[in-house]
């Protein structure tokens, strides 16, 4: 209960600050839409030069992209920790966080949330419906439930990977440019992973499991039965990666000595 009320108090504060700079808020929502459009344009341009991608049609790839946007939107709304090292470790903000009686990771999540990113959920759903109807997919009674589980699983995978990367800062406070590059790698989970060689496929499945935030769960809705095992692993991988990340984070906080002055 305590955490719920803390969350809503932060959310209210957040809305107040954002509404102060309305012009920027509008630009930000537009730039999010633009970002979502860019990847769609990439797919459209590419399929202007080919009809299938390793046996997957344009609509199927678009569907995967639509799915991806939903967990990704949830991730970006709540896990804005790509600049954790700079903002919290180097500038010493972490000390402030640690003096407060709420779990440090949770504080950072609610401090840094960007609720307007949740618009991506709508875009993603719209793209999925568009592609799904072009493909003639039927909606079963259990689909919304499965979708919810897959989306949560995917968001947790993203969260797990980025929390793990942020945790590195507790041991080494020097700059890494890993986070922005990781965002790029996330894009490759949206294509049928059998186009890659074994090393990259393995990486995208088990090490940086971005394929579970794209092609694997989508395979369930697209009726690609040979990938169902992977599809159902999505929530398991999500929980696993988040658990690893939180354990690492807690270890890191214990190790943390402050940035000095």
């Amino acid at each position, binding site marked *: 209960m305590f955490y719920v009320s803390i969350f809503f108090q932060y959310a209210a504060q957040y809305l107040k600050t954002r509404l102060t700079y309305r012009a920027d808020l509008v630009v*930000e929502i537009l730039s999010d839409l633009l970002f979502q459009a860019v990847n769609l344009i*990439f797919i459209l341009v590419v399929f202007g030069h080919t009809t*299938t991608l390793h046996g997957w049609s344009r609509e199927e790839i678009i569907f995967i992209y639509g799915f991806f946007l939903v967990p990704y939107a949830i991730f970006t709304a709540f896990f804005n920790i790509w600049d954790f090292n700079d903002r919290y470790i180097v500038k010493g903000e972490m000390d402030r966080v640690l003096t407060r009686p709420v779990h440090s990771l949770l504080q950072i999540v609610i401090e840094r949330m960007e609720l307007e990113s949740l618009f991506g959920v709508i875009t993603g759903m719209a793209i999925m419906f568009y592609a799904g109807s072009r493909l003639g997919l039927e909606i079963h009674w259990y689909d919304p439930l499965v979708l919810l589980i897959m989306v949560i699983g995917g968001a947790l995978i993203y969260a797990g990977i980025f929390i793990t990367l942020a945790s590195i800062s507790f041991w080494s406070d020097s700059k890494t440019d890993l986070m922005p590059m990781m965002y790029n790698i996330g894009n490759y989970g949206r294509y049928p992973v059998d186009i890659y060689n074994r090393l990259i496929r393995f990486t*995208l499945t088990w090490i940086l499991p971005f394929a579970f935030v794209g092609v694997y769960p989508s395979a369930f809705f697209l009726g690609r039965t040979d990938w169902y095992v992977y599809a159902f692993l999505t929530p398991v991988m999500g929980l696993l990666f988040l658990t690893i990340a939180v354990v690492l984070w807690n270890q890191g906080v214990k190790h943390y000595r402050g940035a000095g002055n």
Partner: protein
Amino acid sequence: MGNSAVYLEMIRIRFLMMLAYRTNYYSGILIYSINIGAYYFLWQAIYGAQESIQGMDAAQMTTYVAVAWMARAFYFNNIDREIAQEIQEGKVAVEMIRPYHYLGVKTMQGLGEGLFRLLFFSLPGMVVIWLAFPITFSDNFAVWGFFFISILFSFIVNTQINLLTGMATFFLLYNTGLIRGKRVVIDLFSGLLLPISFYPLWAQEIMQFLPFQAISYIPSMIFTEAFTGTEIYQALGIQLFWAAVLIIPIQLMWVLAKRQLIVQGG
């Protein structure tokens, strides 16, 4: 200019600052290689059985992708975010009374960062990529020369756009949206994700009139030898044109910004 030594010093300091963090860059090379590798296989799948698309074969495309990302390490910088932050924190007021041009300093810091990444990131990265993937390097010395001139212009044009985006904070006060939007636009319109020649004709016609092609498309096309002969000179001409033209809005914005400077908070 008596204070060109100051600017050189700015390049040196930023370079040394980056050098202190160099170990992290080796892990960065690994991640970049995965990135380029995945892109390579994606393009293999797109090509499928096709020999060439828009006059580029799969090998040229791989080289294009690799060089586009490696060149990005040189021209890319975050000075738009740095400027925005310094404006918001009010530091810019102090910077303005110092005996150098604030924008010049920012540019030099970006150059120091870029030179560091070129030497410690792009060059070793290119070797790794070259070992792992079938990339073809030109044996024509002139191509390399044109390429280096071209990425210098990439840096200039990209930095100019960053200066403009950063300075917009003077007017918007809070600027994360525009900075993010700019990055997306550059990824798409600069030819980093897709060569401009792959776009539908109407889109290509629009992009011809935009400065973004000068950032990634032109150096990459020169490097892959997809541009030959007079095409190279024309392309460099376009870069020079934009590098010159963009000075105008920068100066204009700078003058206006100084006039309406509001230091937020104290």
